[in-house]
């Protein structure tokens, strides 16, 4: 288990990236049962990561460092943006629309990378500093993606 907030959540970003890659590969192969399964586990991992940040990490950070409210607000907005894309993905998977599936995944991948870069470059280091004493307790409630 990673011992800093940065390390734990950045590792989780990488795992979510790999889950997205698995959906993409399945969609390319056209086996819709496997696409459905991969998409569901990707969706679940992303949602779990968002909820941990929104319900545990961001409130703790905002309480300790009120100036973080601006950045966490932007991050929450981007989570909403990505949730919309995940809904589009689910619709494309349900409709067995391979081209849409791949197009949505490509878009979601790039927006996720941009979002992750901001979190890993600015927000997580901020959290590491502001929440140094509480990291272990905060991370105890975090379930990483498979």
């Amino acid at each position, binding site marked *: 288990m990673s011992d800093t907030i940065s390390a734990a959540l950045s590792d989780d970003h990488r795992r979510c*990236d790999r889950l*997205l*890659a698995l959906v993409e590969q399945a969609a390319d192969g056209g086996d819709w049962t496997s696409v459905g399964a991969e998409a569901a586990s990707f969706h679940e991992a992303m949602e779990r990561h968002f909820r941990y940040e929104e319900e545990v990490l961001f409130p703790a950070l905002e309480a300790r460092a009120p*100036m973080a409210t601006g*950045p966490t607000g932007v991050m929450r907005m981007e989570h909403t943006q990505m949730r919309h894309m995940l809904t589009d993905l689910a619709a494309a998977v349900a409709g067995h629309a391979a081209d849409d599936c791949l197009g949505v995944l*490509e*878009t979601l991948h790039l*927006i996720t990378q*941009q979002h992750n870069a901001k979190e890993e470059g*600015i927000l997580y280091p901020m959290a590491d500093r502001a929440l140094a004493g509480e990291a272990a307790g905060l991370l105890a409630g975090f379930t990483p993606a498979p």
Partner: protein
Amino acid sequence: MVDTTGLSLDQAPPIHLPLRLLLTAPWFAAAAGVVLMSVGEPALVSRWTPTALALTHLITVGFLGQAMCGALLQMLPVIAGAPVPGVRPVAALVHLALAAGAGFLAAGFLGSGGWALALGAAASVLGFGVFLAAVGVALVRARGAPATLGSLRLAGVALIPTLVLGASLVSALLGWVSLPAFATWVDLHLAWGLFGWVGLLIVGVGYQVVPMFHVTPAYPRALTRFLAPLLFAVLVAASVAALAGPGAWAEVAKGLAQGGAALGLSAFALVTLRLQRQRSRRRRDATLPHWWSAMGSLVAAAGAWGLGAPDSLIGVLLLVGVGIGLPSGMLFKIVPFLCWFHLQQRQIATGRFDVRVPHMHGFLPERLTRWQWWLHLGALVTLVAAVAEPRLTLPGGGLLLVASLLLAGLLGNAALRYRHTRALLGQPAMDLAVPEVGQ
């Protein structure tokens, strides 16, 4: 106090600014195709022919200049939280000046007279100079991504001797100044431009986008820490040797610059190819093959240099294989992402969630981008062969023309699709002053 400006969603410049550069770039590659076709067999006989010089500047100033400046204006604010000051007038001026610069330089080399060369050089220096002044401010202020920023800063510095040397060379050609050992100065201009400015920019951007686009492991730290400073140091050493005087020192300078660049850049290419083989996103998208052919061309160019192959072969590999190929592949990601991103922002601003914003492949159909790569590869292979068999210059130029027109058409179509969807989304009440994409 923690600086949080990098988290702002408003860091990206208005879409029409980078797009006007990115959408203009392919037309200069198309122009290079037309020149190859109209000059035909003598075009690639030597790197010193007027045609070769015209082709080189159409590709480096026209295509690469527009594509690199457009992409950097977009990328810097996003990756480094560093907005480019005065981005609107800067983008407009850089766009026009580089277009005029490439056009007049090519016309001048192809025989339109000294006035065209002078005008072309002045416009190119103006365009790149203004770009560098504005982006330099952003690069100094930027933070985060140290490997990328380190490379980009050195690339920016390398542009200065490229411009100074280029302007001096044109002045010498026009008889305004005398420049002994003219060929040595040309070699230095080329080394700073191709290996310094373009090479370091590719390296810096690669550090950032190769792991990001295809989910690969990061570049090894030894490489990201030392490669860019070493390449830069080699160029400085080569310049000092050249300044030490003509004769043996000039040869040392040339060998040092070319050998250092060959080793350093092919190491970058080989590491890139290895990282991409370890990628998690196994699917072969439209950008990946362009990276493969460009990195392959880079290694081949270094090998060709080592074996003493003709300069024109190395030129084709570097200019067409890397210089046209790599940015083409990058444009396939950048342009549809920009279209999607800005429309999505517009959708939030207008609240028109009933309008469907297309995903990236809706702007740029993947099947056609694959065709574009095959045409590009065809052009590259044919032009490489044309160095040995000049009769292939005509079909090679034709393929380059078709590949570039398809690239221009695909990007133009993406911009039209953007405009169409934006019209559907309507204008938010407070934001009527944002200009249309006028390309």
